[in-house]
C-alpha cells in the first residue's frame, strides 16, 4: 500500500500564483517606482563624470581592432606570463606562429603580445606659451590581481631581468625586448602595467584601455584645470591595415565606472514602461478582472 504522504500523493503545500491583471498590478508599479529613481540616479552620476575633480584617467582608444578574435585571444601563454621558467623557454603551441623567432622562444609569445600598442602619449598644459608636462602615472592602471598574481617575471638568481630572460627573444614587432619596457624594476618585464593592460583582451572591437593616471594634487583645484592642453603622440602603431582609428580619452570615473548614459536612460525607460503597463493593467483589471476572480464562467 502506498504511503499516504503529502509528497507521494502530490499534496505538497504549494504557492499557486495566478497571473492576472489584478494580482500583478502591484508588481508593475513597484518595478516602475524602483527603476525610475535608479535610472535618474545613474543618469545624473554618469553625466557628472566630465567634471575633472578627482583623479583623471587617461585612455587610448582603438576602433575596429578585433582583440576578441578567437585565435588572437588564444594566442598567449599564461604560464609563461606567470613566470614559469619551462614555459618561458618552451612556450605553448597556442602561440604559433609567434612562438619562436630564429629558433629562440619569444617572450612574451603570441599574437596579443606581439601586437601590443606602443604609441606614447604625452600631455602638456599650455600656460602662456609654456608647456608644462602633466605628470602621468603609469602604475596602478592594471588590476591588482593581474599585476601581483597572474603576471610574474621568471624567477631565478637575482633581479636582473636581462639574465632571467636569457635565451629568449623579443616579439617580432617589438622594438626592444620585454625586460626593457620600463626602467623601474617593479614595472618591467611581464609585470609592466602597460603590457598587462594590453594583455587583457577587449571584449568589443571598439575599446579603450587605461593608459595613465593623472592624480589630483590638492582638494582646492580640479585635477585638470580649464585651459589649453597639447597632446604629443609618438606614432609607432599602424592601424591603417585594418582601417582602425585611435583615440585618446580623458575621464574621471564614478562609482559606476566611466561615462555612459545608456544604463540610466534604460532604467528610466523601463521604469516608465512598467508604470504605464501598470496603469493599463489597472484598466484591464477593472474591466475584465472580476469575472475571473469570482470564478464565474461566462456564458
Amino acid at each position: 500500500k502506498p504511503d499516504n504522504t503529502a509528497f507521494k500523493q502530490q499534496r505538497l503545500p504549494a504557492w499557486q500564483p495566478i497571473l492576472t491583471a489584478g494580482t500583478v498590478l502591484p508588481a508593475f508599479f513597484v518595478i516602475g517606482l524602483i527603476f525610475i529613481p535608479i535610472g535618474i540616479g545613474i543618469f545624473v552620476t554618469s553625466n557628472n563624470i566630465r567634471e575633472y575633480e578627482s583623479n583623471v584617467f587617461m585612455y587610448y582608444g582603438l576602433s575596429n581592432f578585433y582583440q576578441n578574435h578567437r585565435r588572437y585571444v588564444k594566442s598567449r601563454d599564461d604560464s609563461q606570463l606567470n613566470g614559469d621558467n619551462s614555459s618561458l623557454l618552451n612556450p605553448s603551441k597556442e602561440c604559433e606562429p609567434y612562438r619562436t623567432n630564429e629558433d629562440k622562444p619569444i617572450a612574451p609569445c603570441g599574437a596579443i603580445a606581439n601586437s601590443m600598442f606602443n604609441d606614447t602619449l604625452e600631455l602638456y598644459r599650455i600656460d602662456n606659451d609654456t608647456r608644462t608636462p602633466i605628470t602621468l602615472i603609469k602604475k596602478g592602471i592594471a588590476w591588482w590581481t593581474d599585476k601581483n598574481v597572474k603576471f610574474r617575471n621568471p624567477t631565478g638568481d637575482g633581479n636582473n631581468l636581462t639574465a632571467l630572460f636569457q635565451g629568449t627573444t623579443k616579439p617580432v614587432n617589438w622594438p626592444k625586448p620585454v625586460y626593457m619596457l620600463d626602467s623601474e624594476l617593479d614595472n618591467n618585464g611581464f609585470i609592466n602595467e602597460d603590457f598587462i593592460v594590453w594583455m587583457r583582451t577587449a571584449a568589443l572591437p571598439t575599446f579603450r584601455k587605461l593608459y595613465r593616471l593623472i592624480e589630483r594634487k590638492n582638494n582646492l583645484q580640479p585635477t585638470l584645470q580649464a585651459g589649453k592642453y597639447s597632446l604629443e603622440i609618438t606614432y609607432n602603431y599602424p592601424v591603417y591595415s585594418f582601417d582602425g582609428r585611435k583615440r585618446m580619452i580623458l575621464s574621471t570615473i564614478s562609482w559606476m565606472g566611466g561615462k555612459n548614459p545608456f544604463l540610466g536612460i534604460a532604467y528610466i525607460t523601463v521604469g516608465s514602461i512598467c508604470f504605464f503597463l501598470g496603469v493599463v493593467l489597472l484598466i484591464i483589471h477593472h474591466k475584465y478582472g472580476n469575472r475571473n476572480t469570482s470564478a464565474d464562467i461566462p456564458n
Partner: protein
Amino acid sequence: MADPIRWARYRWQRLISTEGREVSSSSNSSSKRYQSSKTASKHRIVIPCLGHFKEEYEKVSKLYMNNKIRTTKYTLLNFIPRNLFEQFHRVANLYFLFLVVLNWVPLVEAFQKEITMLPLVVVLTIIAVKDGLEDYSKYKLDKQINNLLTKVYSRKEKKYIDECWKNVSVGDFIRLSRNEIIPADMVLLYSSDLDGICYIETASLDGETNLKQRQVVRGYSEQVSEIDPEKFSSRIECESPNNDLSRFRGFVEHSNKDRVGLSKENLLLRGCTVRNTEAVVGIVVYAGHETKAMLNNSGPHYKRSKLERKVNSDILWCVLLLILMCLTGAVGHGIWLSRYSEIPFFNIPGPDGKLIPPALAGFNMFWTMIILLQVLIPISLYVSIEIVKLGQIYLIQNDIDFYHEKTDSTIQCRSLNIAEDLGQIQYIFSDKTGTLTENKMVFRRCSIAGQEYCHEENAKRLESYQEMDSEDEDSADAQYASLNHMSKRRGHNCRAVNESLKKKSLDQLSGSYPVAGRENSASDVPHAGHVAFSSRIETDVVPDTQLLEKFSQISSHSYQQSEDAVSKLSLETTYIIDFFLALAICNTVVVSVPNQPRQKMRHSSLGRMPIKSLEEIRQMFQRLSVRRLSSSPLPSIKESSSESPNSFVSKLSIFKMKLASPALDGAAQRAAEPHNPDSPENPQLSEELDMVNVAAGSEHHSAGSSVKGSSPLSKLCYEAESPDEAALVHAARAYKCVLQSRTPDQVTVDFTGLGSLTFQLLHILPFDSVRKRMSVVVRHPVSNKVVVYTKGADSVMMDLLGTASEGTKNSEMEQKKIKERTQKHLDDYARRGLRTLCIAKKVMSNEEYTEWLNHHFLAETSIDNREELLLESAIRLETKLTLLGATGIEDRLQDGVPDTIQALRKAGIKIWMLTGDKRETAVNIAYACKLLEPDDKIFTLKSQSRDVCALVMNKILEGIQKNTSAKKTKSQKLGNVSASPTTQAPAFSAGLVIDGKTLEHVLHDSLQNIFLDLTEKCRAVVCCQATPLQKSVLVRLVRNKLKAMTLAIGDGANDVSMIQVADTGVGILGQEGMQAVMASDFAISQFRHLRKLLLVHGHWCYTRLTNMVLYFFYKNVAYVNLLFWYQFFCGFSGTSMTDYWILILFNLLFTSVPPIVYGVLDKDVSAEILMQIPQLYVMSQKSVAYLPSTFWITLLDAFYQSLVCFFVPYFTYYGSDIDIFSFGNPINTAALFIILLHLLIECKSVTWIHAVVIVGSILFYFVFTLAFGATCKTHNPPSNPYWIMERHMTDPVFYLVCLLTTCVALLPRYLLRVLQGTLFPSPVMRAKHLDKLIPEEQREAIKRWKDDCVVNCRMEFQVTSGSSSSATGAVSEEESIASVLPTSKTPLQFCSRGGLVEEVSLSDIQDESGNTNSLSSERTVFLNLSKETNSDSYGSSNCCAKVSQRTSEEGKSAISLAGLNTEQV
C-alpha cells in the same frame, strides 16, 4: 512472486504464446500455412544418453544446447566496446561524438579539445553504469539459476545424483520431487501418481495459480514401478525448439517401431513447479535457451510516446536552426575577412605563415560554429526526459487512490516511457468481461427442458452482497449505496431473509478470502486470489425452490423403485439430471481439498459392496436417463461384468444412491421450504444423512464415506480455468450434484439424489474460439453408453442440434418445442446482460464411438497438422446433440464503471466496447455502464455480405447527414455560424452495434473508410462476438487511419493482441491470469481507476513533460543565442565570451535540476478539480500546451530574451575598457536569472522543493564561479577567469545590469501570461481559480461549470483548430437535436432485402408473447434496475408488471432501437 526479476523475464512469454494460440486455433488457413513451411527434416530426435545409444547420442544430442543459460548482454571483456556500440545507436549520441571528433581538427577547433567531450562522457557514463548494473544483476541471477541442483541420472553410478542445472543436457533423465522446479523442458515418463498424472504450477510462467495437469506418455503410465532409465530404449522425435507454450508435437518410437503420440500434456516446461506429486521422471528434450520458456523470453518492447515523436521533429527544427546560424557565421566570417586587403595583425596566419583565403576560412568557421553552438541541440534533454518520466511513474505508482484493498494491489507501470500518452487518449477500446464487469461469474438462472427457473432467492442473496460491497467501499459513492437501500425496502417484503443474509455475508466478508492451504505457491503470486474464482459470491448459490422440488422427486421416485414410479419419471426429470451432470462434468475444473494440499479426492474403498440387484439399478437408470431421448436398444446386460474397475465402481455408486435416498426425501423437502437460506452444506442435513446411513445398517462404509463427504465436501476447492466453469460447478453443487474428484480418466460426481457416480472420462475436447464450445466424452456408469456432454455458445450450439435417427415423431416435436422455448429464454437472458451457455448431450452407440475414436486417434498422433485434424475430429463428434437447457450467468458491473465512462466521455474520449459476447448481452451491458444512453439512436450492422454492408453504412451515413443538415439550417436560422461538420463532434448521439461476422466485411480495405466515417459520427461503438484478432485489427485501424491515440484495456488473454497494438495498453489485474497485465503498459485493478489515471495523471504527465520540453528548447536557444550575437562583434571568429567550463556546466549543472523538478511536480490544476471537470482533459488531448505555434512562440521568446540579455550589457559596456570574460560574466549571470525566473513564471505551483532547487541553483552558480575565479590563475587558458567574479561582486554596475536585463527579458512573457490570464483565460486557468475558492463556492462553481462548460470548451477548441463557432451556436444545436430526435418516429427505415438490416423503431415491435416484451422496454427496466441495485428479481411477477408498464411509456417516446433485427434470408 518471490523473485520479481525472474518474473519480469518471463513476462513476454505468455503473450507470444497467445499469439501462437491464435494462429493455431483461429483459422484453418493459417495453420495450413504453418504446416507447409515446416518440413519433416527439422524435427529433433532425442536419444537417451545411455550406454546402448552412446554413439548415436554423441552424434545427435551433443549438437543440442545444454541447459546453461546466459541472459546477460555483456561479458566483462566486451562490456565497454559493446555498450558503446549500443549507445551510439542513438542519433543524439552520434551527433555529440561527431562534435567531439570535430573539435580535434585543429582548423576548426573551438574549445579546448577535451572539453567538448565532457557532456558526452557524462551521458555515456551514466547510461553505461545503469546498463552495467542491470546486466550484473542478470548475471548474478543466471549464475544462481545455473547452479541450482537437480537429480540427474548418472550412467556411472547407476542412480540419480545431484547435478547443476547448467550441466543438464538433452537426453538426460531427471527425477524431480514435489515442489521442485523443472530445470528443462522434458517429456514426462513417470509419475508417482497412480494415474500417471503430474500437477505443475505455471505461475512463474504465466502467473496463473491454478494447477495444470500433465500426463505420463501413454504406455508408461501403466508401469507400477519407477521407470528405469537403463531400460529405456525408445527414441523421441519432436519438433524443433519453438516458443509456442501451448503446443508440443512429437512421438515416442519404441524399439519395436511402435509410435506413441506426444502432446503438450506430456511436456513439463522449464520454470514450472511440480506440485502434489511425490516424484516424477522425465527425459530432457529441450534445454537451456532452447526451452520454450527461454525462447519466449524476448526483450522488452519499446513504445515511443506521441510527445516524444513530436519532440524529435522539433529537434530537427533546432538542427535546421543550428545550420542556419552556422551558415550565418561562416558567410559572415568570409565577408569580414575579405574586407581586409592586408592581413590585419589580429588575424593570425596559418601555420605556414600564409593567410587562409576567406572562402576556406568561412568553411572552416562553419564547423567551428557547430561546435560552439552545439548546445542548441540539447543532449541534456534526453537525459532529463528520462529522469522526469521516472519521477512521474514513481508518483503514479504511489498514488493511494489506485490502491485496491480487496486484492491488495496498486497500479503497476510496466512501461516507463509513455506516461504522457495517457493525457492524449482519444479512443478507448475496452473489453467487457472482467474489465467493465467484475468477472465474478454468478449463476443466475437456468432453463431446463424449456422450463425456466429464475432463482429468485439467489438474486436476493446477490443483492445483499452487493450492498455489502458498496458499504465496504467507503468511497464517495454514498449516494449509490443509499439508492440500494431504498430499492431494497421498496422492492421486497422478505426483509427478514435479507437481514439474515446480510449478517451472514458480513461474517463472510470479514473473514475475507477463504484461506486455501497452499504453503508455497500462494505466497508466490501477489495479486491473484488464493484460489481462483472462489469468492463467496460465486460459490454460494441458493437453489431455486421449484427446481429443488423436482429434485426431491427424483430421489423419492428412485427410492420407490417400482415400475409405475419409473414410468412417472418424466422426461423433464431425466433432463434435469443430465443437465446437472453436464454442469458438473463438462469442464476442466480441478478439485482439491485445501487442508491437504492438492490431494485428490478418491474413493479407495472398492469392492466391499455386495453386487446385488445391479441389473435392477441399471435398468432403472436407463429408463431414467435414456429412454425418451433416444430409443436405442437397451445395452445387453452381459457386457457389464467385463468392464474395467472404474465402471464397476460407478455401478456401486448407484447402489449407494439407493441407500442414501430416504434421508434426502425429508431433507430436500425442508430445503424446499420457501425463504430458507439454505447453504448447500447444511450441517443438519448431513447429520441426518449419516443417521439414516447408520440405520440402514448394511455395508455402509463406502456409503458413509461418500455421504459424509458433506463435511469434507464443504471444503472442496474448485480450480477452474475460467470463472464461468467455476460458476456452473458451484451451481451444480448447490443442487447437491457435487463434483468430487477428477482424474484424467474418471470423474466422480456425488449426486445426492442418486448417489455417487463415477464416470469414465474418455475425452475432453477443450474450448476453443472457433468451435465456441467444449465437450467431454464419458462412459455413463449405468447405461454404459458413451455420452457426450457439450456446452457452448448458443449461436453455435443451436445449429448442432438434431434428433437421433430413430427418434419418434413425438419426441422430435417435443425437442423442437424445447429448442424454441430455450431459445426464447436465451434471448431473454442475453437481454438482461447475462452470459448464456447451452448445455446439450448426445448418446453414442459403441460402434459410432469406435469409428470416431479411430479417426481421432489418427489426429492425435499426427505431428504436423494435428490441430486441424483435432478440430475436424471434434466437429465430427459434436453433431446431433440433444438440447438439455441453458444457463444464465451474471457478471456484475464493477464499481463506478458508469461514472467512469461518463467522465471519460465528457473528457472527449470515444469509448468502444469490444467483446466476444452476444450482441444482446453486450448491448445491455453497454446500457448499464452508460456507454449507450437511453435516448441514443442505435444502429446495428448485421449483414451477410460486404456489398450489403456498404449499402447499409451509406444509408446510415446519409441519414445522419440529413439529420445534421436539418439541424444546421435550424441553427443557422438562429443567426449563428454552425460548426464545420468535420470538427463538430456528433452532437446528437448515436451508437453503433456491430457483430463479429459483419466486422469481417467491414474491416475489408474497401469499407474501412466508410466504416470509420460512420464510427466517427457515433459516440459509442459496441463490437460483439469479436475475436481477439478482430479486436486488434480494429484498434490498429483506428490508430493508423484516424491517427488517433488509442488505449486498449482488458483483462484476459484474448485482449493481449489488442493491448499490444494500442498506443497505450492497460491491463486489469483480474481473475483470468496475468497475460493481459504482462502485455500491458499499465496494470490497474479496477476499471474505475482509469478515470484518475487518465484525467489526472494523464493530464499532469502530459502537461508537465510538454512544459518541460518546451522550457528546454527555450533554455537552450536563449542561451546559445547569446554566443551567436557575440559573433557579430568578434568577426564571426567563434569566440565565446564565457569561459567554456561555465558554458558547459551551465546546462549540465546550474540549470538542469529545476526543469526536472518542474517536470515531475508541477501541478496546473488540482487532482480534485481535474476529476470533477473531465472537460479539462481535452486540453492535453488536443495538445493545446504544445501546438506547433507554441514551439515557435517559445523560440521567438528565446530569441528576444537572448537579444535583451546580450545587448543590455553590450550598450552598458560599449566603448569601455572591459575585457572579453568580464563582459561575459554579467551576461551569463543575467542569463541564469532569466532562465530560472522564466521557469518560475511558467510554474503553476511552487512548492518548497521548487524554491530550494532554484535558490540552490543560483547559490551553486555563485559559489562555483567565485571559487573558480579565486583559484584559476593560469590553468584554463585563454579565459582564466581569475578574480573576475570577485571584482564584479563589488561593482554596483554588475548588479544594475543583471537586474535590468532580467526584468526587460522577462517582461513580455510575464505580460503575455498576465493578459492571457485576464482576457483569455484557458479552461485550465479558470479551473485553477476554482482551487482557490472555499469548498462550498467551489461546489457551486463546479456545478455551473458542468452545466455550461462543455459547450464552452468545445467552442474554444474549435476556435483553436481553425473553425469558428460560437457557444450559443453549439448550445442551440444541441437543443435542436434534443428536440428533433424524439419527434421523428421512424428515423431510418431500411428495406430488408437479402439480409439487410431492418431498422425498426420500437413502437413497431410488439412481441407476441407477453412474457418477453419488446427489447427496449426490457432494457429500460434493466437500466432502472441497474441504477438502483444492478441486480434485481428478474422474471418474477412484479417484474413483469413493471415491464408492461414501461412498454406503454416507451411506445410513446419512440426511441428506435435496432436490437431486434428481422433477418430475411
